[in-house]
């Protein structure tokens, strides 16, 4: 029986369970420890992916061969995409901060299925390992791009099947996490926490959970079809067997487009937590932010075709997908208006997480607006598959999800580690990172408008200036990232002890000690007020 006095109960970091050392982590079913397992895995892959990205930008600083061959470059952008999409941003915020904070924020002791939760992490590690192994055991290095488009991917390596099997296992990780969160939110909310008294981060995890649960199985169907084609020679995708390459693109994007919302919705949730805390003000338009999350999750299923405007779909399909793409922009716009309105008549405490939120808003708006140019048919026909698209999705996925991830990292760091970080270095790192980010991806917009296609190892002299600027930006950004990460790691040792509520937050995680005790709450709280009550 655990003692009733919260001061005597050990924190989840000090707790000595059945297993010692590393086994105390990799066999733990504590949602907080699992969250950190994900954090460590994801950050490791992120550093690898970012380094590969930097090497690509070194190569592109001048036309012709700079540091690597075409074959290596093609392998690099393939690996960069696979690692960043499947191993970093899709699990990203839900797996790390969702796991750690969802139960605490709704007043629960753990997720609904703790063992299933641990299994999800094992699926994640297995899936990533399978995908990476498949890329290195074929006839040559990987060179299909992370999209594995048929029929090219069928021709170059024999390893399509294990790669998609890896994605399938990763998919299971995603499905189980989604299921776990949905059940947790439905069944384990603290007494008195009605749906509309729930904080916004859990709300976005709820919307994300449905996307994970319903969209991810499409990977399974695709895998079965690839298996049938490879083994039984039934032509689904390969034109030499009578198949249709476009069918592959449809199936791929039917999952991979909703996956974009798995990435961005929890990011929006984190921003919705950070802004009211540092504004010391209740969030503006709570109900509308909730409704827009649900709307994004719903409409997000029906717009995958905008990846295929030049592929050769029928005209009706083209303009339907284009129209729906414009519609899905509206709920995101509503969120932005509400976030900015929250700052009106606030009392803003300018701390690092808030700077990240402001940075998020700026780059997310640029990402969103550039998406309008790509959603429009006439302009997409020119810009599709150019650097403009690369700039757009880095502004959304790295700008949106990445900024929110680092914002969340700085926001919840005291809660997770029990230490405060050095905010001066954190801010310096952010400024360097932001400058590099805008230079790196901003230049890509102009390269794309000029007509430079993506996935180009070598390029015409007319694209040289833009590439120099972009590559310099990459170096600055990478340096900023290093400052940020080193500061966070060094603060683990040097940081002063964090109080339970360093920022003046009102959601439940700030009512318990930092780091939280094993069972989170001594007594499950009874909720009587809304989540951002500053009255």
């Amino acid at each position: 029986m655990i003692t009733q006095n919260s001061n005597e109960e050990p924190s989840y970091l000090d707790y000595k369970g059945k297993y010692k050392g590393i086994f105390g982590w990799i066999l733990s079913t504590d949602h907080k420890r699992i969250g950190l397992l994900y954090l460590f895995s994801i950050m490791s892959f992120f550093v690898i992916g970012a380094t590969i990205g930097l090497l690509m930008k070194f190569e592109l600083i001048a036309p012709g061969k700079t540091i690597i061959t075409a074959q290596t470059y093609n392998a690099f952008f393939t690996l960069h995409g696979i690692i960043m999409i499947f191993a970093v941003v899709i699990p990203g915020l839900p797996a790390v901060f969702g796991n750690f904070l969802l139960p605490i924020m709704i007043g629960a002791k753990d997720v609904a299925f703790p063992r299933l939760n641990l299994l999800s992490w094992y699926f994640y590690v297995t899936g990533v390992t399978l995908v990476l192994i498949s890329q290195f055991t074929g006839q040559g290095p990987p060179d299909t791009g992370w999209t594995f488009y048929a029929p090219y991917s069928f021709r170059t390596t024999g390893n399509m099947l294990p790669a998609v099997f890896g994605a399938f296992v990763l998919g299971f990780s995603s499905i189980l996490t989604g299921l776990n969160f949905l059940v947790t939110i439905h069944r384990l909310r603290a007494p008195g926490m009605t749906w509309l008294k729930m904080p916004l981060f859990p709300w976005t995890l709820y919307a994300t959970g449905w996307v994970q649960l319903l969209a991810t199985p499409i990977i399974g169907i695709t895998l079965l079809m690839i298996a049938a084609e490879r083994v039984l020679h039934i032509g689904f995708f390969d034109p030499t067997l009578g198949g249709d390459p476009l069918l592959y693109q449809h199936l791929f994007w039917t999952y991979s487009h909703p996956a974009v919302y798995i990435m961005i919705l929890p990011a929006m949730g984190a921003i919705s937590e950070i802004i009211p805390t540092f504004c010391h003000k209740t969030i503006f338009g709570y109900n509308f932010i909730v409704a827009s999350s649900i709307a994004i999750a719903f409409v997000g299923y029906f717009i995958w075709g905008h990846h295929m405007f030049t592929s050769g779909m029928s005209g009706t399909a083209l303009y339907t997908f284009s129209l729906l793409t414009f519609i899905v922009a509206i709920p995101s716009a509503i969120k932005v208006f509400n976030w900015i309105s929250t700052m009106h008549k606030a009392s803003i405490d300018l701390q690092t997480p808030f700077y990240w939120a402001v940075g998020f808003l700026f780059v997310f708006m640029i990402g969103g607006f550039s998406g309008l140019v790509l959603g429009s048919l006439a302009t997409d026909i020119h810009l599709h598959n150019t650097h403009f698209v690369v700039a757009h999705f880095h502004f959304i996925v790295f700008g949106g999800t990445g900024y929110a991830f680092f914002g969340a990292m700085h926001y919840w760091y005291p809660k997770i580690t029990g230490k405060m970080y050095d905010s001066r270095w954190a801010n310096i790192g952010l400024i360097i990172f932001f400058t590099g980010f805008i230079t790196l991806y901003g230049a890509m917009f102009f390269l794309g408008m000029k007509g430079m296609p993506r996935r180009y190892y070598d390029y015409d002299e007319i694209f040289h200036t833009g590439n120099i600027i972009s590559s310099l930006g990459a170096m600055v950004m990478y340096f900023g990232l290093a400052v940020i990460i080193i500061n966070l790691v060094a603060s683990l040792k040097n940081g002063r002890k964090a109080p339970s509520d360093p920022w003046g937050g009102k959601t439940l995680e700030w009512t318990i000690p930092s780091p939280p005790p094993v069972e989170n709450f001594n007594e499950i709280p009874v909720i009587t007020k809304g989540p951002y009550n500053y009255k």
Partner: protein
Amino acid sequence: MYSTTGIEASNYVSTYNTAFYFIAGVSLLLLFGLTIAMLYFVFRYNKKRNPVATQIEGNTILEITWTIIPVLLALFMFHLGWAGWKPTTKPPKDAMNITVIARMWSFLFVYENGKQSPDLIVPLNTPVKVNLVSLDVIHSLFIPEFRIKSDIVPGRQKFMWFMPEMEGKYKIFCAEYCGLQHSYMHSTVNVMSQEKFKVWFAESAKPIAVAGNAPGAVGEAIMRAQGCFACHTPDGTKLIGPSYLNLFGSQQVVIRDSKEVTVTVDPEYVKRSILDPNADITKGFPSNLMQSYRSTLSDDDILKIIEYLKTLNDK
């Protein structure tokens, strides 16, 4: 600027510009407005200047306003994009037909009179319909100055059409990733006056108009047009396929039906390599990359190619 030259080289440029400038203009306006509002709030409602926040739960009228206005803007943006795209689906009946044959990693343009060219040569102010054929994987024909692009999907009948409206030479890129030499798969569209084009079009029924009478010059020109040098070099450098240097007449170890066989590179072998390229694969090179040239090369062309190969042997 977003254009390399700022000119209106095809019938799509002005509609593209309308849609692009409207969407980008409204977007930039909103971006600046919202960013300035945000920065002003951060400055004005800083903890020091405003120690106590005013709690505001929301405002339904505002919410409705900032839902309806963006919806209307978005619908108008959609309309502009749709209106600019609509003409791409309807080629004029009198359009000139050209077929592009795309393969790893070259484009070949075939005209109705049988004339072939590695560059796309078109007359000014004449609608041109390009039928898109791929022999291997998905490619994409992209002419930035024309603001037009279309994927070339194997096994699918597709076309794109445009009206060139300005004389000059413009770049063509492949815009769908297609393997090792993807970034080297490019060409040029050359827009000529209608008179000049007529002369060029009638000039020679032969596939290639050749300059020079040196031995092998015709063969070399044919091979350049077909894009052979994207994978095979004449100077001994190893790309994805074997080099031609000292190849003709030599002994080569090839894989035939999973068995190693030694063959002599004679005219018979050269012909088989061109028309049935995957029957024998030189040891150490990947298979299933090269497709047959049966549809674009005649027996006479192959004889010319052999003449050229002979010139690459050390004397």
